[in-house]
């Protein structure tokens, strides 16, 4: 049985957007796929050694807020300093109570399952990061590196 391949581009660096690439990659690996994730722009936040991912209610009308706050809370209120931190804490505790894995745990499961992770070198330079900022085992490359794997993949996702 030839191995199926999944290629993902991860471009977002918030807590909520960290889930799709890691959930899909770890599950695909469990189903026998060979998986590669290419992290570019804000997606690089997902491969930092210490992740400090936040979720923002600002400009996000789809986000259910506790105590029906979204019904009576002025939109401007979501921009109050500290609101993002509070919403992130609430989101994390809700996830924990529902048995949803942490992003750290899912990333670890991906690494254990040999999901190959590639960081966009151009973005590393752009934001003045160094390779020390990122997890061990992260490889670096550009668009051509992505296509080398994506070109022979069965599924490619842009997240």
């Amino acid at each position, binding site marked *: *049985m030839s191995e199926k391949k999944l290629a993902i581009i991860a471009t977002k660096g918030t807590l909520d957007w960290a889930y799709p690439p890691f959930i899909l990659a*770890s*599950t695909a690996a*469990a*189903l*026998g796929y060979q998986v590669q994730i290419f992290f570019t722009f804000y997606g690089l936040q997902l491969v930092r050694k210490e992740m400090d991912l936040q979720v923002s209610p600002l400009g996000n009308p789809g986000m259910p807020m506790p105590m029906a706050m979204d019904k009576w809370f002025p939109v401007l209120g979501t921009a109050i300093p500290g609101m993002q931190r509070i919403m992130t804490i609430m989101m994390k505790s809700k996830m924990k109570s529902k*048995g*949803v*894995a942490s992003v750290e745990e899912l990333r670890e499961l991906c690494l254990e399952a040999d999901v190959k992770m590639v960081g966009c070198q151009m973005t590393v330079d752009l934001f003045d990061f160094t390779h020390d900022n990122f997890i061990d085992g992260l490889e670096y490359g550009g668009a051509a590196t992505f296509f080398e794997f994506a070109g022979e993949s069965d599924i490619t996702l842009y997240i």
Partner: protein
Amino acid sequence: MADFDQELDASGLNCPLPILRAKKTLAGMDTGQVLRIVATDPGSVKDFEAFSKQTGNELMDSGEEGGKFVFRIKKG
């Protein structure tokens, strides 16, 4: 005699953890052995069907017991 060789309690875990734990447990078992999985995630019912179709591990049965979802998977 129990009708399974190993048991995995995935109660309280949400997608995709029950699948990932099952995969990990199956990896340590022999072909033909049976894994019993207990889960509370309603999504796992469809997911374990899909998992066994795609991995060649046979889903022998799936059902509900005391409000929990129970599966038996034979390692292929």
